[in-house]
């Protein structure tokens, strides 16, 4: 039997004050299965890690139990120390006596009793741990970037480096929706210049291969080894290999339709914000060529239908207003808004500057647009006030962003769930905002929700960071060892595990009539082991025996 060691961490005062560690040490001392007990003030500190490593080596422990904090916090830390001493890091069990005892059980005696039970359960469990070995596979460090907009271009630029080929796939020409943007907010810099610079650098980068006007037929494979089949306009088929995929398609402008579309598609001189920006830059006139005396920008168009705030349109409207005034001093611009969304530190200033330029802000409750031969008329009602009318020469509808029509295709291709609005779901809204449930597939730009150019660039950088740190040229990819395993003899091929696997890691082998786990995709969530009635699916680090022994000890 291998030597089992127990380490007690005081976690500063966190554990030491709430739990009687002396009593725990005394109680465990009589247990013959434990070869030694060590105690430290803060095991996760540099000094603590050294203490842990030396303790393991001096006592020749092969399996250890650490009674400390949540595995979420320091399991990886302690596993690393374990490896550094030459031990298998999976022969360790971290008992959470901080969050589960010290912090929640106020009575010191009760907390100590509880900690003791949990530690004993871990001692019983660790005997049944398997020395799991991490497997490695060959991988391609290249990246497939889908989307020729700002997010896609930026991702390509940030990941391109020697020994790493980036395939930038655009279903149109490079530039995406930014092609129609004149000015960037809040800098009021020319968007064209900015975009052209980016496109130039992407075109001149020897590590980036650009495919414009292409059709992405399918992308197969998994993290480390994806294969894309792409069709170009010249009728050529390309097979592209890469280790990661970044989905970076732009979101689309919402186009008003239906009953309350404020004259859009019906009257002359009613544009969406995107359409207005795409107009030739010298045309600060009405369609019939009259100069613009007054322009109304109506905010939150389609907000109700979409069901969410697109967060970029308020600022975008102000930017357009300022651009109009900058180009044509005589034009009066009125912003009809409902609720202003001014996120961050710079947009409040931006708003104040906009107001200082003489742009009027009017809050509306109801609003409608009509037209006679001469003018457009805005008829609105503010909160609590009577109805008013304002004649204007042009109406610009500030609309939000909707998911690209291609989202569902890629969602299906990569097994990524879609939210109620049709955007891709992030792996976790807070903890993993640019990852998807499919390992190696990241999202940047407008695929998972509305955002502005700054957001796209930040997300592109984040996705690039993840790829650069996980796919290193010349290095093999280390796989998760705590995966699921399906016994060929026990499996009856009912497919229940296939249904519940969130990562698309299980497939049915039609010949053998059994389920097969792809260990590259498996993240070890254990859903399959839980749903398998035949006992064929098994989690390597949460085996029935490990769990039942742990529970049996707790019940003793």
């Amino acid at each position, binding site marked *: 039997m291998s030597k089992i060691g127990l380490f007690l961490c005081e976690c500063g005062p966190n554990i030491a004050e709430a739990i009687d560690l002396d009593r725990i040490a005394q109680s465990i001392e009589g247990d013959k299965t434990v070869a030694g007990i060590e105690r430290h003030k803060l095991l996760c500190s540099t000094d603590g890690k050294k203490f842990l490593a030396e303790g393991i080596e001096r006592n020749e422990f092969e399996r250890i139990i650490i009674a400390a904090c949540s595995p979420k916090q320091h399991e990886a830390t302690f596993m690393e120390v374990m490896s550094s001493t030459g031990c298998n890091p999976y022969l360790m069990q971290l008992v959470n006596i901080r969050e589960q005892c010290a912090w929640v059980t106020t009575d010191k005696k009760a907390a100590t009793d509880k900690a003791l039970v949990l530690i004993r359960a871990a001692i019983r469990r660790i005997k049944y741990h398997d020395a799991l070995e991490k497997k490695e596979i060959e991988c391609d460090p290249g990246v497939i970037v889908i989307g020729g907009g700002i997010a896609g271009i930026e991702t390509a630029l940030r990941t391109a480096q020697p020994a790493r080929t980036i395939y930038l796939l655009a279903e149109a020409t490079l530039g995406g929706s930014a092609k129609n943007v004149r000015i960037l907010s809040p800098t009021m810099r020319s968007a064209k210049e900015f975009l052209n610079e980016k496109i130039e650098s992407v075109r001149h980068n020897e590590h980036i291969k650009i495919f414009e006007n292409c059709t992405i037929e399918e992308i197969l494979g998994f993290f480390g080894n994806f294969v894309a089949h792409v069709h170009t306009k010249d009728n050529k088929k390309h097979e592209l290999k890469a280790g990661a995929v970044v989905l970076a398609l732009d979101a689309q402008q919402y186009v008003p339709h239906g009953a309350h579309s404020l004259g859009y598609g019906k009257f002359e001189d009613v544009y969406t914000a995107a359409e207005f920006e795409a107009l030739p830059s010298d045309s600060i006139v009405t369609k019939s060529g009259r100069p613009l005396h007054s322009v109304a920008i109506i905010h939150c168009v389609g907000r109700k239908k979409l069901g969410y705030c697109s967060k970029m349109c308020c600022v975008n409207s102000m930017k357009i207003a300022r651009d109009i005034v900058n180009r044509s001093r005589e034009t009066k611009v009125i912003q009809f808004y409902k609720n202003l969304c001014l996120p961050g530190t710079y947009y409040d200033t931006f708003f104040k500057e906009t107001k200082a330029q003489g742009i009027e802000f009017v809050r509306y409750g109801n609003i409608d647009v009509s037209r006679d031969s001469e003018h457009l008329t805005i008829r609105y009602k503010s909160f609590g006030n009577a109805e008013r009318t304002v004649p204007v020469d042009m109406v610009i509808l500030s609309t939000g962003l909707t998911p690209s029509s291609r989202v569902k295709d890629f969602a299906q291709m990569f097994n990524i769930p879609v939210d109620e609005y049709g955007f891709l779901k992030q792996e976790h809204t807070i903890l993993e905002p640019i990852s998807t449930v499919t390992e190696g597939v990241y999202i940047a730009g407008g695929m998972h929700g509305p955002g502005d150019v700054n957001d796209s660039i930040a997300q592109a950088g984040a996705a690039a960071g993840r790829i650069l740190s996980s796919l290193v040229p010349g290095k093999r990819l280390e796989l998760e060892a705590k995966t699921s395993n399906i016994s060929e*003899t*026990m*499996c*009856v*091929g*009912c*497919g*229940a595990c296939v*249904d*519940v696997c969130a990562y698309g890691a299980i497939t*049915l082998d039609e010949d053998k*009539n059994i389920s097969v786990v792809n260990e590259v995709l498996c993240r070890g969530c254990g859903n399959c082991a839980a*749903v398998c*009635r*035949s*006992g*064929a699916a098994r989690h390597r680090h949460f085996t*029935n*025996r490990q769990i039942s022994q742990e529970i049996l000890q707790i019940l003793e």
Partner: protein
Amino acid sequence: MNSMKGTLLTVEAQNISSTIKKFINSLLERNVFDAVLAPVRIPSGESFAYLLMRDKAVLEQCEPAPPIMPIQGARVLKQLTRRGELNVKVLSIMRPCEIRASIELAKLQQVHLKNITFLSFDCPGAFSTSDYINEPDMYDVSFQKALKAFTAKDFRACCTTCVNFSSGNTPTDLHIAHLGVPDDKLMVIPTSSRGEACLQAAQLSLTEDISNWQEQCKVWQQRRQENREKDFLELRQRAAGIVNLDAYFSDCINCHNCMRVCPICYCRQCFFDSRDTVRIEADNYLIRARKKGGITFPTDTILFHLGRMSHMSLSCVGCGACEDACPMDVPVGQVFNFIGDKIQKMFEYVPGRDVEESIPVLTYSEDELHEFEDARDVS
């Protein structure tokens, strides 16, 4: 299927069985099917087995509505189609509970339904197999009467509480109705477009009104529902709590027959027959014996039943095959039926109702089962 109509068959010499056979024969003659899967009487005359027939002469031996259910038809279909879809058209004659179990197995890839057409009948119930083999002649007579009267003194308990005895919650293709139909007639009702196509091929015109049959089905459903509630109430008192449950299963000899005949138990090897449970060192038993004061052998009887219940009760069609197979007459089917009813209602799930309806254990819904969020409130 909005304006369902049926077609009438005339029963000659009060022989329901031969009337159904004649109808099947007419379908075979027109090559609507390549083969028929139906129960036949075994040579001893004391029981029935399923026979896959391609020869019309053999069809004569078949008994479309046998008085007992010694083999659950879903298990037969599983063996027939486990490795893939059939490439010949087969007419499968079964009780509604057998069809529902087949549908459940299809959801679990254990049965492949392609090219299978189901033919069901208004099932009054079945006798216990062990009763039947002692006096087959007497029970044959009772069953013929029961087909019309729809009740018999000795029907199995699971049958007398069954509300899905007709085509209502069963996705059959052709249904033979005798409830609400004159004594000398049977009515064939197509219950799917496939069934309709069969009757068209057989050139049978659908003109008969089915409202009488529907009315009678409702009446019997009501009666069965009353039986059900009464039985469940008694069961609750008999089996609730670990002490009562222990007593309920105390006759169990751990033969695991109930698991072997259950159409839903589809594991290749049951955990309770596996080395995890059969190869336990004596020391381990001694520890358990010390703690409890003693340990009964064979061990884990209740655990076996509870384990099986947790695995299959969502899909339990209440066919009672388990109870029929029990050599000790443990009312195992009734308690599974009772628990199945409760858990299925929790998810508004009817096993075998629709092949497209996913088994709740395989679906995730964020908004459900709030009543269990605070376990203390569960009484």
